[in-house]
């Protein structure tokens, strides 16, 4: 008995007796491990943070975290969480409540979009760490030929016309993957609609809102790009990385994508993988509008931090989280790993402006950004959208209403995904 207890305690403490906090991180370029080391130093022996890397994609990260949390894993001290999956983990009580003082201290200057993604049922259930949003990237030469003033908001219709007239490709994500839900949600929200009427409801009462002008408008954009071949031949299997490659090519024109494309394209230019003058031809703007004059609702991404309800080190974990999300660590993470801060003050770092000339646009976009449906059944909703909106060439006017009906049938246990 004594031996067993000793072994169990040894699992939670280092050799020197220092409590060890496990931080389950999404894969990155080493930024979270560096921040873990910094905060371990700052803790001066009160705790040590060790990182454990989760699988690559968000869906697989969710699977592993959910299984561990459901099994009562006591090592879930700190978790890097994708915002759409937070309600699913919060609803069954898998996440420890955020103490009021921690919530106040860590969200005082958080950008609106990022804060919305950290909440469930009007309560802060996780702490925003970094926020992400998609921008409209464009080739200046193509926009100029099309006669578009990119200092003003542009619409999807204008982009489609420009690509069609110049026989260029639009960089969008048409794969049967999470990126499709990101796109559809942004289109619906930009058209003033929403995917779910009552996202907080239970599975039996959840009602979709895709049978609407906004839903049909979203289907029209996806279907037009798909059926006219404006997304390129790879569109049905094209996610973020593939659309970046398309955008960099000779037929690139406009692209909606996350900010990672900037450091990635600069690195490619340095390696000689793309022409050097490509960088000078790339511009950026806030996400395109669905109709002229109606503010767009760009996609929101990023990572929040949560603590497992079975964690044996909850107080220390919240202490560590406060250190991790300090604005200087968020700035460091942006500069080193290309992931934008959720904190407004983190953007004050002069190095950010130097490395990311589009930082102000990102910040503006984050203020406009709208999260994906926040529901404990997000996985079902998202998968149904992905299945219905792919391949984009087969998306038609009726796709929106069919998707809505399909989601409701799945949630009521009447259909398989």
């Amino acid at each position, binding site marked *: 008995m004594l031996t067993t207890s000793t072994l169990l305690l040894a699992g939670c403490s280092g050799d020197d007796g220092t409590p060890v906090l496990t931080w389950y991180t999404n894969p990155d370029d080493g930024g979270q491990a560096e921040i873990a080391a910094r905060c371990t130093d700052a803790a001066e022996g009160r705790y040590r943070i060790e990182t454990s890397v989760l699988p690559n994609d968000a869906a697989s990260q969710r699977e592993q975290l959910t299984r561990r949390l459901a099994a009562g894993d006591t090592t879930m001290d700190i978790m890097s969480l994708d915002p759409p999956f937070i309600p699913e983990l919060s609803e069954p009580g898998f996440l420890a409540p955020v103490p009021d003082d921690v919530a106040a201290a860590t969200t005082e200057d958080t950008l609106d979009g990022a804060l919305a993604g950290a909440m469930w049922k009007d309560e802060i259930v996780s702490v925003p760490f970094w926020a992400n949003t998609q921008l409209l990237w464009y080739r200046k030469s193509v926009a100029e030929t099309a006669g578009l003033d990119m200092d003003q908001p542009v619409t999807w219709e204008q982009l489609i016309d420009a690509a069609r007239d110049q026989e260029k490709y639009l960089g969008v994500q048409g794969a049967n993957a999470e990126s499709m839900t990101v796109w559809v949600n942004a289109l619906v929200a930009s058209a003033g609609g929403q995917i779910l009427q009552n996202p907080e409801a239970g599975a039996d009462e959840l009602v979709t809102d895709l049978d609407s002008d906004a839903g049909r408008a979203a289907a029209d954009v996806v279907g037009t790009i798909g059926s006219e071949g404006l997304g390129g*031949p790879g569109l049905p299997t094209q996610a973020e990385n593939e659309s970046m490659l398309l955008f960099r090519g000779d037929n690139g024109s406009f692209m909606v994508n996350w900010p990672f494309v900037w450091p990635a394209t600069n690195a490619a230019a340095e390696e000689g993988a793309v022409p050097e003058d490509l960088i000078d031809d790339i511009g950026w703007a806030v996400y395109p509008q669905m109709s002229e004059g109606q503010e767009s609702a760009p996609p929101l991404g990023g990572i929040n931090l949560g603590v497992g309800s079975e964690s044996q080190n909850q107080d220390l974990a919240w202490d560590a989280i406060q250190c991790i999300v300090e604005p200087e660590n968020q700035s460091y993470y942006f500069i080193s790993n290309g992931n934008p801060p959720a904190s407004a003050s983190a953007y004050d770092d002069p190095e950010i402006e130097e490395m990311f000339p589009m930082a102000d646009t990102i910040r503006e976009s984050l203020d406009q950004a709208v999260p994906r449906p926040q529901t404990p059944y997000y996985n079902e909703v998202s998968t149904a959208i992905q299945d219905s909106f*792919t391949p984009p060439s087969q998306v038609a006017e009726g796709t929106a209403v069919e998707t809505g009906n399909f989601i409701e049938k799945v949630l009521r246990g009447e259909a*398989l995904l």
Partner: protein
Amino acid sequence: MTTESTAQPAASRKKSVRPVKSKRTKAEARLGWWLAGPAFFIMIAVIFYPLMQALWDSLFSYRLTAPDDREFVGLSNYLTILTDSVWWSGFAVTVLITVVTVAVELVLGFALALVMHKAITSTRGFVRTVILVPYGIVTVVSAYAWYYMFSIDSGYMNNWMGWVPGVDSDLNWFAQAGSALTVIMLSEIWKTTPFISLLLLAGLAQVPEELSEAAAVDGATWRQRLWKVILPNMKAAIMVAVLFRALDAFRIFDAVFIMTNGDYGTEVLSLLAYRTSIVRLEIGLGSAVSVLLFLCVALLAFIAVKVFKVDLARGQGGKS
């Protein structure tokens, strides 16, 4: 001692069959149980218990993220599955992959077995090594290799197609069921044909050489010897190869998961079970899918063993 017993006439052997339980045989029996015990318990732990648990869970509406909402629903999950086109589409794709890959592998495997069998002694080792290389590669690795070969973004298959006049070099192989399943099946055939050829090589080695030679002396052509002498004598090896490979192909997962994740009409039953249980975390529904998949595989095995009279223990096959 053994000479004595085997030399007895059949009738007298029958009479002496009744065992006499001496102390020694009882001790041997106990020892047998002790030796078989660990394997027995392992089988209970890793096969029987999970199977029973899956069967039990399949009768409930149970979601991992709502552990308190577990409700007994009887056969409702099975009804939902069997009345859904997703199941039947997955079933059709699974059967198609099984039938096509096993048929092609059997033909190719036999050809390769002949090559290995006839290879001259000095090259036999080299030939066998070359033929068996694909089987030594991990399925995940081979699936990725085939995926990248046919990827529209980085694969060289589309580059090659660009050189052929009139051929669509912009074909997105993984965006429609026909081409995607073709690549999936090609990767499976490439990977697993060596396994079939190994089994058939063993069967080929058991065909009495003198029979074939006698037929040749009697004027039989090579094709006649193949159909009338070689293949009938390889029946057991062929049936075992078909059985093993069909059961394996019916449970295909890795290649589909890696190349298409079941998108665009390529979903197979094992992937459906995975997506329902592990991705959706619908344990009740997912367990029902898994049980149905198990029943399909069990039925396949039953047909092979009973209908075709495959005797795995004796290595004999064919209708008796």
